[in-house]
């Protein structure tokens, strides 16, 4: 009995020791993909995808996944710049009537949906034109509440009326206390949306819609079988069934998605312009891409890899460290790691020695500071001009973007038609122009930042998201404005709060960014069109009669030098009236591991993902060398 205590103590210590040993044994390798088989592409996404229901795909990250699983009538060419569309489920170029209002698509034959339990025998059914009619109607259905409705709003003959009728029914159903949210009235036809036989689809438009084909390549308008919607109901968003080269194998909306290849995918080949003349698109400098090694898989059948594992890595550091250890096949380095990755604008030799390569893309989008032009203080155009002059964009690019951005003098980025190199209230080198800003403060009636009542002018600057980066932007904005005597209160919002405030016009200045849905300047100019003011998408609440007239005129025009001139004129109005201060167009520096093949990066579309390939043997060798315990190996 005397040794009882000691025994107990020994037992405790032993079990602890055993436990720690277990842990050490369990974790002696840092490999985050234990037991993986086959050729799997590894990538990290920056945020959680919201929904894999095409009608609900609204954010980039859902878009990336949906674009591998679903297909629409058209898709973006993976390599051609400027961007080009190629037929996907459409067999060829559509027939367009003389007035441009009737468009008939011929569908590919023999395309099958993924095998799925939603079909009677579990085998994927053949795709027919009626599927598109169903999907477009469902997209417009008020019970689905798609955020992409603007893409077809008032464009297709009878669709708005159809939507309105369904909304009325929905209200009646709710009054009767019946289950709402169900898809009723899907059998009612829409005039402008018809299947002509099994493989022909006809769209009839209310007005010329030059952006239609871009829109048809967006995930919103891709195709899925009604069987899946009926079987899964609200869960359809987690059970995608499409026609694409990949299908969802495992999906945890807060952690990762694992895609596997669709072995029944129809024959689609990587463009092979050298051997197949029909792949040589006019305007595509394919020889350059071939020299860059992008076409190593030319002529091979998709899909090229056995699957993809996309992890949702929200934090910058782990994402970067994953890449450095070789656990991600490509990455846009987080801004805080830029000076390690790309010191002085060139790829770090340490990475270059490892075989990592870098690609630079100017983002099709604009970061801007938005004024609420209906605010009693900011209605003052000279105050807005003074603020524009006081902002030190050069400093911001250097320190907050680590040099990875272009100064934006125009709200339209340089590669999009409509861009002009003109801003009267911004210095050419992007630095602050304090003397002139102070002059405009006087003109605005705030000499030295003082209000008429002798108090200092105070403004609120709103930003969404609580990251340290946001904090840095906001605090620099305040620093800049303090130099012309304005005191700034920084307000951090959650995204819903920010949206709520904009809708109610309850803000003064906000830090925002816009990424283009398609490469046409109309997509960003719409935000300043008067009738789009809050609660519409135009948060600046900008009202300028001339701007609005020009916008309406350009809206029905096809791409032409004349339309570009109109866009330029609109951009000039924006520069002079300053409802926004365009700040920068971000540069995307994409780092590619040596084993990644065939990538030309862009953010406008995610179709290029399916053209990626991995050299498995090389990856295994490199990753093992880079990850020796206790920091050995090639660091």
């Amino acid at each position, binding site marked *: 009995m005397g040794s009882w205590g000691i025994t107990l103590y020994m037992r405790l210590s032993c079990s602890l020791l055993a436990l720690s040993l277990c842990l050490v044994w*369990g974790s002696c390798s840092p490999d985050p993909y234990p037991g993986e088989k086959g050729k799997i592409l590894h990538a990290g996404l920056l945020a959680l995808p919201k929904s894999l229901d095409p009608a609900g795909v609204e954010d980039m990250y859902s878009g990336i996944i949906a674009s591998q699983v679903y297909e629409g009538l058209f898709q973006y060419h993976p390599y051609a710049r400027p961007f080009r569309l190629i037929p996907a489920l459409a067999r060829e170029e559509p027939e367009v009537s003389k007035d441009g209002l009737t468009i008939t698509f011929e569908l590919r034959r023999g395309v099958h949906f993924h095998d799925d339990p939603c079909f009677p025998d579990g085998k994927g059914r053949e795709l027919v034109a009626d599927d598109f009619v169903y999907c477009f109607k469902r997209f417009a259905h008020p019970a689905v509440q798609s955020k992409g409705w603007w893409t077809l709003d008032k464009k297709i003959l009878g669709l708005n009326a159809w939507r309105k009728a369904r909304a009325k029914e929905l209200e009646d159903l709710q009054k009767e206390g019946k289950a709402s949210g169900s898809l009723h009235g899907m059998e009612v036809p829409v005039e402008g949306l018809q299947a002509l036989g099994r493989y022909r689809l006809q769209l009839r438009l209310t007005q010329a819609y030059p952006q239609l084909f871009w829109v048809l390549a967006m995930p919103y308008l891709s195709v899925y079988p009604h069987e899946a919607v009926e079987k899964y109901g609200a869960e359809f*968003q987690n059970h995608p069934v499409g026609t694409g080269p990949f299908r969802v194998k495992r999906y945890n909306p807060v952690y990762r998605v694992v895609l596997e290849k669709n072995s029944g995918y129809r024959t689609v080949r990587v463009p092979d312009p050298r051997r197949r003349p029909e792949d040589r698109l006019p305007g595509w400098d394919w020889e350059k891409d071939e020299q860059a090694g992008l076409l190593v898989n030319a002529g091979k059948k998709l899909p090229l890899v056995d699957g993809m594992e996309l992890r949702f890595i929200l934090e910058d550091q782990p994402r970067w460290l994953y890449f450095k250890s070789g656990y991600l096949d490509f990455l846009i380095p987080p801004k805080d790691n830029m000076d390690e990755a790309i010191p002085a604008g060139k790829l770090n030799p340490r990475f270059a020695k490892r075989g990592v390569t870098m690609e630079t893309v100017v983002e099709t989008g604009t970061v801007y500071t938005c004024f609420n032009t209906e605010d009693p203080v900011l209605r003052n155009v000279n105050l807005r001009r003074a603020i524009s002059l006081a902002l030190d964009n050069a400093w911001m690019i250097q320190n907050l973007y680590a040099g990875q951005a272009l100064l934006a003098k125009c709200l339209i980025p340089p590669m999009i038609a409509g861009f002009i190199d003109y801003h009267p209230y911004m210095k050419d080198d992007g630095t602050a122009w304090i003397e002139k800003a102070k002059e405009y403060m006087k003109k605005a009636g705030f000499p030295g930042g003082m209000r008429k009542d002798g108090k200092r002018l105070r403004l609120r600057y709103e930003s969404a998201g609580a990251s340290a980066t946001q904090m840095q932007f906001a605090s620099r904005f305040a620093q800049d404005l303090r130099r012309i005597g304005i005191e700034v209160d920084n307000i951090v919002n959650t995204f819903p709060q920010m949206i709520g405030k904009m809708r109610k016009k309850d803000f003064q200045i906000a830090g925002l960014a816009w990424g283009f849905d398609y490469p046409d300047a109309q997509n960003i100019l719409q935000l300043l069109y008067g009738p789009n003011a809050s609660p519409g998408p135009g948060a600046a609440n900008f009202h300028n009669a001339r701007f609005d007239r020009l916008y309406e005129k350009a809206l029905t025009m096809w791409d032409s030098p004349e339309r570009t001139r109109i866009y330029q004129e609109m951009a000039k109005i924006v520069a002079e009236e300053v409802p926004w201060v365009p700040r920068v167009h971000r540069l995307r520096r994409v780092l590619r591991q040596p084993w990644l093949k065939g990538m030309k990066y862009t953010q406008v579309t995610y179709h290029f993902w399916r053209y990626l390939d991995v050299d498995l043997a090389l990856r295994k060798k490199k990753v093992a060398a880079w990850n020796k315990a206790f920091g050995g190996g090639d660091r």
Partner: protein
Amino acid sequence: MEQSLWGRGPVIGFVIKRLLYNIPVLLGVALITMLLFNVASGDPVSIKLGKAAKESQRKALAKQMGLDKPLVAQYGDFLVQTVTLDFGESWNDNTPVRKIFLRGVGPTLSLSIPAFFTGAILSIALALLVAYHRGGWLDRFMTMAAIAGISISSLVYILVLQWLLADQLKLFPIWGYEYGWGALRFIALPLLIWVLLSVGQDLRYFRTVALEEIGRDYVRTARSKGLSENRILFKHVLRNCSIPIITRLVITVPFLITGSFLLEIFFGIPGLGSTLYTAIQNSDFPVIKAFTMLGTVMFVLFNILSDVLYAYFDPRIRLS
């Protein structure tokens, strides 16, 4: 235990009484939660529809979500949801809240339960060791170390250890998770940090408890009878210490469910803590409501359990 009132005592009556007493508390919690988030949650309709929505669309949705009702009616709905444990669907991605909970509970528990037991065993063992050597250099050193340990910010702990052990020494994965046994490698480092964070606090408490017990008369009597120090410490003292120790441990159980959200965020564990964090950022009210009510109910239940256990182990306490 021989003299315990257990068995004779009105245990069931006690539990029922406590449960009844806690009903108003739950009502109050529900009210506070409601009011807090009805004011704070921004505009729920915008979350679902985006900013391009039309006014008619917004009204229809508000109606569908029951947001057009007066607050009292919404409170009623909320209570019904709590009782039926059906909190509807997330506003963010329309997933049923129940599913969100089931998805996250596994990863969370796979970290929190091992961490809880490792931490508890380690701190009890250390506390006894320290109590055995009370007043000696080991005692002084450990007390100092414990104070120093709890004085470091948990954020600094996480940052530095993740950097050192995962990034520099490559001993652990930096980030990620795997279901099943594969979880072990991923939770190892967060578990280590959790234990380090909790041991300092627990060690201090358990040491105080042990010292208090050692100061009692029966220990002196036993000593004067010539019983060995070991036997006194590990048989009598440990047994009597078990009451405050167990109560303290039982009370922390509800917090194992919510997990450590900082660790989950930093190490990419798709558990309830990180889910809740995302929900708060997105004003995802159904999820927040469900988690708050669940946390409260667990807290209340385990409090009652701890009282019952207290009475079970301590003959001096009567359930009343």
